[in-house]
C-alpha cells in the first residue's frame, strides 16, 4: 500500500536556512545541508528546499547546496524558488535535485510545464500553486509569495497543469500559511477531487492533527510542513507515529 508522505520544507535565503531547527547538537544552525541530513536521518520521506533568495545572481548558491545535500541524503529532494527556465531545471537536476517546483513561471505561461515535463519527464515536475480564498468555494492563484493577484481560478489552473504534464501539485493556502491554524481543507478537497495527480498539502500546519486532516479530510497524498519541524516542536518520527496510531499509513 502506498504510504502518505511527510515532507519537511527548508526555506533558504542566500544559502542559509531562514527558519532553522533549534537543535543544540547542530554545529551550524543555518547550514541547509546539515539540516536536510537531520530530517533525512529522522525519517523524512522527501526533503524540500524553497529558495527565497530575492536576486537571480545567487542561483549558484542554491545549486551548491543541492549538490552537497544530494551527496548525503538518499531520499527524494525537491527544489523550488526562482525556477524560470529549462536551464534552471537542468542546473538543479544536474546538481542532484530529483524534482523541481515551478510557481510563477507556470502561471505566466502554462506551456512551460508542458515543455519541461516533455524534456525531463513528469516525475520531476511539481507545480506549486499558491491560492487565496476570494469567495465561498472559490480560490484564486497568487504569485510572488501571495502579493500578486492573477485572476486565475485555482481549481481550473490545477486541472490545466495536470493536462500539461505536471507530476504533482504543491498546494499552498496563502490564507493559512504561517498561521498555524491548519490547512485550508475545503481548498485541498476541491483540488484533490478535481485532479488525478498527487497533491501535496502546504500552509498552516500547527499541530499533528493538521497533518491528519490534510490526508484524511483533504485527500492529500503528502503533507508538507516547515515551522513545526524547524522549531523542534515535533520530530518527523513523532509525526509519523501519531499518524500511524490514527490508522494513517506512513513509512515507519
Amino acid at each position: 500500500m502506498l504510504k502518505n508522505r511527510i515532507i519537511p520544507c527548508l526555506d533558504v535565503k542566500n544559502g542559509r536556512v531562514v527558519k532553522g531547527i533549534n537543535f543544540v547538537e547542530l554545529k551550524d544552525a543555518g547550514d541547509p545541508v546539515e539540516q536536510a541530513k537531520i530530517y533525512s536521518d529522522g525519517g523524512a520521506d522527501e526533503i524540500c528546499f524553497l529558495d527565497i533568495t530575492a536576486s537571480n545572481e545567487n542561483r549558484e548558491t542554491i545549486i551548491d547546496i543541492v549538490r552537497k545535500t544530494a551527496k548525503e541524503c538518499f531520499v527524494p529532494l525537491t527544489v523550488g524558488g526562482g525556477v524560470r527556465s529549462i536551464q534552471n531545471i537542468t542546473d538543479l537536476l544536474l546538481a542532484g535535485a530529483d524534482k523541481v517546483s515551478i510557481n510563477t513561471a507556470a502561471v505566466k505561461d502554462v506551456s512551460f510545464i508542458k515543455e519541461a515535463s516533455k524534456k525531463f519527464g513528469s516525475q520531476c515536475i511539481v507545480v506549486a500553486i499558491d491560492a487565496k480564498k476570494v469567495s465561498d468555494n472559490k480560490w484564486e492563484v497568487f504569485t510572488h509569495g501571495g502579493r500578486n493577484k492573477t485572476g486565475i481560478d485555482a481549481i481550473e489552473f490545477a486541472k490545466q497543469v495536470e493536462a500539461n504534464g505536471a507530476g504533482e501539485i504543491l498546494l499552498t493556502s496563502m490564507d493559512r500559511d504561517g498561521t498555524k491554524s491548519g490547512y485550508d481543507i475545503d481548498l485541498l478537497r476541491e483540488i484533490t477531487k478535481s485532479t488525478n495527480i498527487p497533491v501535496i498539502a502546504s500552509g498552516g500546519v500547527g499541530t499533528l492533527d493538521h497533518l491528519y486532516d490534510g490526508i484524511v479530510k483533504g485527500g492529500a497524498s503528502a503533507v508538507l510542513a516547515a515551522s513545526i519541524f524547524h522549531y523542534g516542536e515535533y520530530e518527523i518520527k513523532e509525526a509519523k507515529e501519531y499518524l500511524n496510531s490514527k490508522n494513517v499509513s506512513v513509512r515507519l
Partner: protein
Amino acid sequence: MNVTIVDYQSGNISSVINSFTEVAKGNVNLEVTSDIKKIKSSDKIVLPGQGSFKSCVDSLNSINELVDTLKEFAIIYKKPLLGICVGLQMFADVGFEEAETKGLGWISGKVSKIDNQNGKFKLPHIGWNEIEIQKESKIFKDIRNKSHMYFVHSYEFIPEDKSVISATTDYSSQIVCSVEKDNLFGTQFHPEKSDKIGLKIIDNFIKL
C-alpha cells in the same frame, strides 16, 4: 571491479551516480559513460532511465553500437546488469508510452499504463510503497519482506514468464517492481532514492 552507469542522456541520473558513489566508496571503479569500449570492459552495468519509454529507447538507439554492446554484455556474456525504472522497463519487447515502441526484448513482456481503476488511484504512482518479495533474489540479500521503496512511475512491466518476478507492490493491482532473470536485474522503484535500504540493494548488486 569496474561498474559502469550508462549515460545515454535519458534524464536525470545524478541521484544514481551519488548513491553508487556513496556505496562504492572508492573500492570500485565507477564510470559514468556511453563509451562503448568502457562498457565492454565493465564487470557490471547499471542502466538507469527516466522520462518516457519511447524517449529512453530513442536515446539508447541514437548512440552508435550502444544497444548491440549492451546486448552482447548482458545476453551473450551474461554479465550482471541492473535496470532501474525505465531502465528495467526497456527489457520488455514493447512499450506503449507516447507511442508503441520496440524495447530491447531481453525479457518477454510489455510495458503498459497502470490501470488506475477510473481515477481511483492517482497517477503517477509516487512515493513509498512496500515490496512483496516473490522469490529469492541476489539483490535482496538482507532486505526484509515489506521494506519500503521509493516509486515514481505511471507504467508497469508485465513479463510473460512470471517466474522472473522477484517482487511486486500493491497499487491498484500487484505491480511487478523487481525482476531477476539469470544475470539480469531490474527494479521499478528507485534504490538510489530509497534511503539506507535502497543503498543496501545497490551494495548487493555491486557485491554480486
